[in-house]
């Protein structure tokens, strides 16, 4: 059962880098940056090894490591990886080095922020790989600590309040999540996701906790995850946090940490509470659609690139949530919905990866602008940038169009599959979500016109060319926006059996 502990290595490698940086206080900026980049690339190297050893035909967990940890509490050190985890590990592998590179141009000591980014990376990987609540929740909460300090100490204006709100709000959600799992543990005596899911499928959880007990546990877990993703209207912490966080941090926040919540929905909430989620799904679907449409409309109102992209993230993750809730709502229904459900779920996983890469690229672009404009990122602070910074415009153009779902780039396939599934499962939701696609095009192209087109004005004049670090990060992310758009099979093949199995559970 226990293979060579490659998953432990995946989690520990960035932390080892952080420890190394922590133990060498005198380390110079240059050495810190290279060290940080090298250790953040460990995920890519190990991810390649995982990809080589991964058997896509098997829907279950692979590379499993399971050891007893705290016997008195029946806690296990249990890591495992399926297609979903693998996709998210690969996403982390791409975004984390880009996030490291984004900070190379910044003045000031590099050691501590580099260290904190590595801690964040390791914690996110732990969340994607842990199969027992105890290590999972540890990593879940640990991710907040470096994020807090990064925002608080290196953030822009309003960072203090934003960091505080971000941490308190998320911890508030997590408290409910913890309480929910405490209730589950009290009645079942296990923290193991696999075992709990089995109990959830059998209906044994309802028997042991009672109908109201299980509902309360479900609500607690739901709340914790809903805040993290975020599900509308639990999203108000996000725009200030994204507006204030330093570039590398916000890249990891939107690229990777926002996926933790969605991963929790798929790994915890849905398997453990299928009946409860089914019952709540219509209401949750309405919230998800509200997030899609209102998120896009709110983005249209923003005068700051960061806040606009923050709302765009709410909109894009809304598609993922809508897909999941539509599938959950249709479970056990009369419509022969397995094909639509498979499309929605396949689209969901694609959207997770694609949004992670695209949003990270967009925020990287904003960071590059800010670095040259004295920290300004207002839509009105620039103009005609395409004339003075053609290379940045080309990269940013790919990211903008990937974000609005242009076919040929990554965003389209996920959104097409989600809409195809959503329409098959819940046509009204698909129709109501459509204005979100239009408003997305509208705010992205309006921002594009104001910042990149028109006569050169504001901070666009005298724009210094991209540095090698910025260029490498942009090239990496751009390749990952084009490749899955042309050949989505490279990602869907990893999750295909898993998604088919999920969709297969729907038919009773």
């Amino acid at each position: 059962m226990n293979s060579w502990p490659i998953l432990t290595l995946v989690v520990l490698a960035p932390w080892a880098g952080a420890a190394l940086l922590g133990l060498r206080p005198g380390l110079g900026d240059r050495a810190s940056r290279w060290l940080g980049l090298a250790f953040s690339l460990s995920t890519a190297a190990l991810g390649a090894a995982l990809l080589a050893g991964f058997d896509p035909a098997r829907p279950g967990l692979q590379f499993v490591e399971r050891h007893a940890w705290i016997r008195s509490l029946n806690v296990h050190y249990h890591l495992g990886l399926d297609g979903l985890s693998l996709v998210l590990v690969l996403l982390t592998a791409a975004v984390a080095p880009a996030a490291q590179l984004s900070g190379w141009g910044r003045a000031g000591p590099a050691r501590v922020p580099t260290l904190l980014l590595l801690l964040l990376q390791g914690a996110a990987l732990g969340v994607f790989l842990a199969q027992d609540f105890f290590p999972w929740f540890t990593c879940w909460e640990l991710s907040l600590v470096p994020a807090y300090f990064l925002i608080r100490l290196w953030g822009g204006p309003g960072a203090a309040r934003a960091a505080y709100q971000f941490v308190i709000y998320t911890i508030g959600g997590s408290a409910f999540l913890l309480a929910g799992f405490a209730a589950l543990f009290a009645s079942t005596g296990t923290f193991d996701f696999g075992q709990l899911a089995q109990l959830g499928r059998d209906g044994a959880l309802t028997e042991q906790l009672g109908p109201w007990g299980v509902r309360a546990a479900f609500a607690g877990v739901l709340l914790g995850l809903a805040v993290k993703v975020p599900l509308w209207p639990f999203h108000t912490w996000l725009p200030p946090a994204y507006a204030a966080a330093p570039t590398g941090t916000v890249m990891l926040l939107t690229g990777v940490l926002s996926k933790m919540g969605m991963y929790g929905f798929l790994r915890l909430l849905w398997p453990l509470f299928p009946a409860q989620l089914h019952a709540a799904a219509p209401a949750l679907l309405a919230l998800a659609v509200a997030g899609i449409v209102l998120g896009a409309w709110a983005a249209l109102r923003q005068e700051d690139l960061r806040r606009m992209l923050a709302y765009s993230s709410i909109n894009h993750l809304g598609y993922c949530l809508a897909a999941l809730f539509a599938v959950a709502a249709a479970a056990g229904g009369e419509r022969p919905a397995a094909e639509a459900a498979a499309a929605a779920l396949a689209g969901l996983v694609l959207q997770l990866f694609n949004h992670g890469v695209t949003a990270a690229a967009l925020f990287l672009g904003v960071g590059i602008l800010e670095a040259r404009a004295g920290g300004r990122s207002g839509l009105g602070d620039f103009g005609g940038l395409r004339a003075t910074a053609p290379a940045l415009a080309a990269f940013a153009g790919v990211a903008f169009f990937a974000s609005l779902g242009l076919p040929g780039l990554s965003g389209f396939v996920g959104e097409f599959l989600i809409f195809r599934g959503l329409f098959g499962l819940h046509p009204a939701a698909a129709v109501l979500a459509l204005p979100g696609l239009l408003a997305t095009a509208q705010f992205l192209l309006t921002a594009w016109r104001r910042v990149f087109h028109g006569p050169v004005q504001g901070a666009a004049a005298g724009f210094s060319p991209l540095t090698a670090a910025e260029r490498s990060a942009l090239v990496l992310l751009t390749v990952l926006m084009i490749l899955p758009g042309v050949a989505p099979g490279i990602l869907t093949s990893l999750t295909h059996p898993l998604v088919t199995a999920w969709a297969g559970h729907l038919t009773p």
Partner: protein
Amino acid sequence: MHLPVQLTWLIPTLPAAAAAVIAVVPARRPGLGAGLALAALAGSLILAVLALGGALADPATRLTHTFTWFAVGHGAIRLGWLLDPLGTLLAVMVAAVGLLIFTFSLGYLREDPRAKQFFCFLSLFAGAMLGLLLANSLLLLFVCWELVGLASYLLIGFWFQRPAAAQAARKAFITTRIGDLGLLLGLVWLQDATGTLLLFDGGRGVLEAEALSTLAGATTVGGLAVSTAIGLLLFCGAAGKSGQVPLHVWLPDAMEGPTPVSALIHAATMVAAGVFLVARVFPLLAADLALPLAPVHALSVVAAVGAVTSLFGAAVAVAQDDIKRVLAFSTVSQLGYMMLAAGTGAWTAAIFHLLTHACFKALLFLGAGSVIHATHHEQDIRRLGGLRERLPVTGATFAVGMMALAGVPFLFSGFWSKEAILHAAHGWAVSQLPFLVALAAVALTAFYMTRLLAEVFAGAPRGHGAETAHESPAVMTIPLVVLAIASVSLGFLGTPWWPWLQRTLDPTFKAEAGGAGLMAVSIALVATGILAGWTRYGRHPRSDARAPDPLARSVPRLHGALAARLGCDELYAATLGRLNAALAAAASALDRSVWDGCVRFLARLGVYAGIVSRETDEKALNGGFNAAGDGLRASGRAYARTQTGDAHGYVWMLAAGFVLLALGALLGEAR
């Protein structure tokens, strides 16, 4: 020698690959990009001709090649290529007209430092457009459909530093996207209802009998057949792309792009993609005709929209003063004709007109480009005039294009294709209204084209640009001559006596007898239009640029309304634009006041509860609130300390915590 259907992908990929190569090669050799673009498109043209040969050799069997894009669930998303007369004929047209316009651009953009980018975008467009025409899957068609939209966006905004160009590009993309969302919804519905988006798939495609009878047999909201609803959704996309009322507003503004772009994309090819889509999915649109009790037939909507658009465009074109805007509204009107034809069932007539229109409208736009080039970017017809002697080749070819568009009888292609449309509209069983509207548009078309020709080429120059004009170089005039020849000769492919084109496109096509009376009526209307135009603008050319338009003198209010494009833009801004802005404001306000307010209220409640509980029973609540309080205090201290720059202590604590955790894990294992 015919092109094997498995190699169809080469036709769109050659220009697309050229675009990719041009994008990444450095800009040091300006000629390299243009040469590569031309060579790739020439290659596509040769392959398209070979493909057409294969399709014509046996029009009844459709050559298809299907492949799996990726697997989903128990099925897969499959894409494919299709070589049939409709697609290959148009592919040959696009590649041929494209090649001429690429050549013309060599001269037109000779001095532009960003010519490399221009050819990159043009090649991207050509690749996507060819893919659109040859796709055997509505999904692949949609992919290419959006990519031509991207190319259009990039090229309208090619001179992006001009605010008007930047604005027009954005408007074009967003307006067409409104239609495209309908198209997307139609696609997902179709996929859900039939399980495929392939057009022809050995009996299982969406255009084949089995799927069509399923779709026509089911009903949905409002008693519509599912096929009607899906058909209308697909038509939304077609209407957006082809500038049909009410989604036409982007097309005249798209004239901000360089003139070769207007010729290729916004006259000859991309804007006709909507008509092509209607022709492509015609069996689906026509599936509800067998249901006499249906509340509305999809094709009737197509015909009605086409009729309104044809009259609207022609009327507004009468009062425009910019040479390109006149031609743009003319394009709107002509696309309306094509839709009208398709709606009345004569999709072959629509394609016939699409082909002839592509040639003569490309000719007119390139002629306009030659005028603009020669007069140092003068586009206002009031300041032109007298160019007949100064630009002899441009003038003569422009006159050919004008006569083809106006429908001057017998020699010019536009006459024959327009005649086929009028014939179909006349024979439509549902209503004669579209026919009468189309007749009115015929007279108006002849009128505004005569006006344009007279204002630009007759009389004396009325501006500095026109006075100093010289004929454009051969690289620009040769494409004009070639297109002029095509604008004459193409018409003979579809005359009533030898309707080769219609029979090739649709083997079941039957030429109907009669129509001499109809022809006489339309010739009389053309003559009236030309005569009215000539008496007002040709016989007494305006004396100087500031002299008012004769129509503005005789019917000032009507002229003013038409010149203002009947206020569509203002109407949209006042209604939809405001609604959208209000919703955006509401969404933003909801966040700031309601949800953020809730959060702040909860936070205060928490603090208050903490104080109350501490005062009443400190020990009982030791765990929760004290911990929260401690946390608050700790973070308060952290604030204080971080402000002195001392964050290292915390990082050290974090590191220590991680070490402890790791130790715990190891110890737990050892036990």
